[in-house]
């Protein structure tokens, strides 16, 4: 397979190196418990990053996802608490909450997408704006504090994060499904092909009868949907949302996408690369907790170094014969 060159293998090499490092540092690193933890907590950013891969591949960007997740979590919690008296402490209420998160995600994605494709404003600005808006709204909804799910509902909802099939918990399953579907969509569906074409050259796409605006809008809708889905799994983990929920998720998601080998300027999307990127980022955190470092203040520095190194491994080898 010609595609398996160093450029493509880079992130995997980095991932494997991290796994080996982790195993050397601590024997319980490879224990199922730890693996479950790492995978399950990668799921939120992971699903968002898969959506982000489509947005970036089509030449877009979304800075609002972290705040959007916080906002959706807040909405879902408010909705569940509100219907609790009438619907009762049962799965009906939780399904309503899930519905609110997912519908909210679609609407939020639509707002971003419509401002970008119809009002033709730079994605950076639109999503910087909505980032502030979502963040403010959730702080306002929570009155500066924390929105909490009623205790009974939380107990009922908890297994959605912590339960699963053996050590493979639901977030892991959901992430895996999203990643596989995303990979298939990017590589084998018409939509994925159109997304790549638009990111590569949107004029060519237009001249090939692709509805550029619609496809771009769809990428934001997809991302919104996935943020909603991530929220559905996030709420049972912490049972609450506040103004500090999901801070900097956007940077993490974008970093995962780029570490995975998707170009920031668009045109080539690698969903599986994104998954590897997300795992690299969560493993770094996990490994930092495995060992005692000089100073916890330096965690950020180590993270920074590893991110850059992971990308150095895959940097485009310069075409030998072109200057």
């Amino acid at each position, binding site marked *: 397979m*010609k595609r398996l060159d160093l450029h493509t293998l880079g992130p995997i090499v980095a991932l494997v190196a991290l796994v080996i490092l982790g195993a050397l540092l601590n024997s319980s690193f490879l224990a199922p418990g730890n693996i479950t933890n790492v995978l399950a907590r990668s799921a939120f950013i992971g699903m968002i990053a898969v959506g982000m891969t489509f947005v970036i591949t089509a030449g877009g960007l979304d800075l609002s996802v972290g705040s959007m997740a916080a906002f959706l979590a807040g909405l879902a919690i408010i909705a569940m608490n509100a219907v609790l008296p009438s619907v009762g402490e049962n799965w009906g209420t939780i399904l309503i909450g899930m519905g609110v998160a997912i519908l909210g995600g679609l609407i939020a994605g639509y707002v971003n997408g419509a401002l970008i494709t119809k009002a033709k404003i730079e994605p950076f600005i639109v999503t910087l704006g909505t980032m502030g808006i979502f963040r403010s709204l959730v702080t306002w909804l929570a009155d500066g504090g924390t929105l909490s799910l009623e205790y009974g509902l939380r107990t009922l909802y908890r297994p959605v994060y912590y339960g699963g099939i053996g050590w493979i918990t639901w977030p892991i399953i959901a992430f895996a499904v999203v990643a596989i579907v995303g990979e298939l969509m990017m590589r*084998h569906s*018409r939509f994925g*092909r159109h997304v790549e074409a638009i990111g590569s050259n949107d*004029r*060519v796409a237009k*001249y*090939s009868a692709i*509805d550029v605006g619609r496809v771009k809008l769809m990428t934001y809708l997809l991302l919104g949907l996935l943020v909603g889905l991530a929220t559905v799994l996030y709420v049972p983990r912490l049972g609450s949302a506040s103004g500090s929920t999901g801070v900097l998720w956007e940077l993490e998601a974008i970093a995962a996408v780029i570490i995975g080998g998707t170009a920031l300027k668009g045109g080539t999307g690698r969903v599986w690369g994104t998954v590897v990127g997300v795992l690299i980022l969560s493993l770094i955190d996990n490994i930092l907790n495995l060992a005692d470092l000089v100073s916890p203040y330096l965690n950020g520095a180590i993270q920074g170094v590893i991110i850059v190194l992971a990308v150095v491994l895959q940097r485009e080898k310069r075409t030998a014969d072109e*200057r």
Partner: protein
Amino acid sequence: MTVLALRDVSKSFGPIQVLHNVDLALEPGEVHALIGENGAGKSTIMKTLGGFLDPTSGELLLDGKPHRFVSGPEAEAAGIVVIHQEFNLAADLSVSANVFLGRELGGFRLDHAAMRKQTAALLQRLHSHIDPDTLIRDLSVPDRQMVEIAKALSRNTRVLIMDEPSAVLTHREVGTLYEQIDRLRAEGVAILYCSHRLDEVAHLADRITVLRDGRVVRQAMRGELNEDGMATAMVGRELEDFYPPKGTPTGQVALEVKGLTVPGRVHGVDLTLGRGEVLGIAGLVGSGRTELAEGLVGLRNSTGEIRVNGQPIQIRGLRDAFAAGLAYLTEDRKEAGLLLEKGLRENLTLATLERFGNLRLDTKAEEAALDRATQDFDIRAKSRDMVAGKLSGGNQQKLLLAKTMLPDPKIIIIDEPTRGIDVGTKRQIYAFIRKLADEGRSVIVISSEMTEVIGLSDRVLVMREGRLAGEVAGPAMTEENIVRLAMGVSGEAA
């Protein structure tokens, strides 16, 4: 005394060898023409001479001594200037900024006035009226080419290498280009000129080198080779009649357009197109032919009445045009035609992906379509996995043609069908266009090459300043009549 030469040069890209033991010498005060089919290796030779590529083996001689340029710019400092086949202009910068890019005038503060003045003077010399302050992105393709030429002329040149400079120019501009070439030749500049227009070569060249499959197959002095001889040497066999015989129109109307208007560009154009007809549209650069076509297929906002097979239809976007059986092949193949970084298969099926599935595209069927297309259109790719940008210009055009034909349209509008294409391929494309008409489809050919419109079309419409200036058919289809209409010169058609 040779200024610049290649001696026994071979060049490979990876495992693929594109040049085989090439010898070529450029003399001062001489125009040396390099001709060959698409993909023969002309651009590769030119890039090697210009210091942009290193030979795999063999050497480059500068003033008789072996030399290795570290970079294109270094070659330029030595007086070797290349006009590349692809545009080499920064779209966000103004014309004068591009002309002086890398060698700006002025000290600490740029001397905008001087650069503007000199640019204007250079453009004046090319009889071009481009404002030096215009951004390149706002210029039409031919105007960009004129800027490229102006940029080359502004250099202190000993060797001028031009890779198909005339491909996107019209008649009049080509004349201007000749003037400049003559002037430079008189000044003792060595010129390497590459073109698919053999009449140009016959007119300009003092010496001709013919390239076939990366090998020099013939070198000749002025007068030793006529156009037929060149074509034969390039292709390696005798060519029959250049243009296919004209067809017999069926009389049925396939397309009827009334009062088509593209705001600011095209004003109330009426036309009819018969089934089995090839309709030419001629006109000067900027006469609005492209806008007419783009307005017709929904790529631009337009108003007017359109009937296909008598049925009135609404075209709000290219999708609607496809649904009505219309297809449009763009003149701008690099910016609007092909995804240069993507593979051949992805490019071929991009506009018709719905035929290959939705959630799971049928890659096998796509591959089969590619097989068929490479065969039908004789696309010569060194490997089927290569990206479209690495194909030679002519093969890119064939791929684009294959892409346009994939939805099986009944009415095809082809804008500049043979820009930058060699004689052999041109013939193939002409034959192909005629075949389309004979199959009962209808074709509109927009071309700036007069002989092409005349040779190919059953009827020619001439546009001027966004309006139809007239129509010629039958024996009245002469170059002179068309030029008169295009330029708005009244008087008797001779």
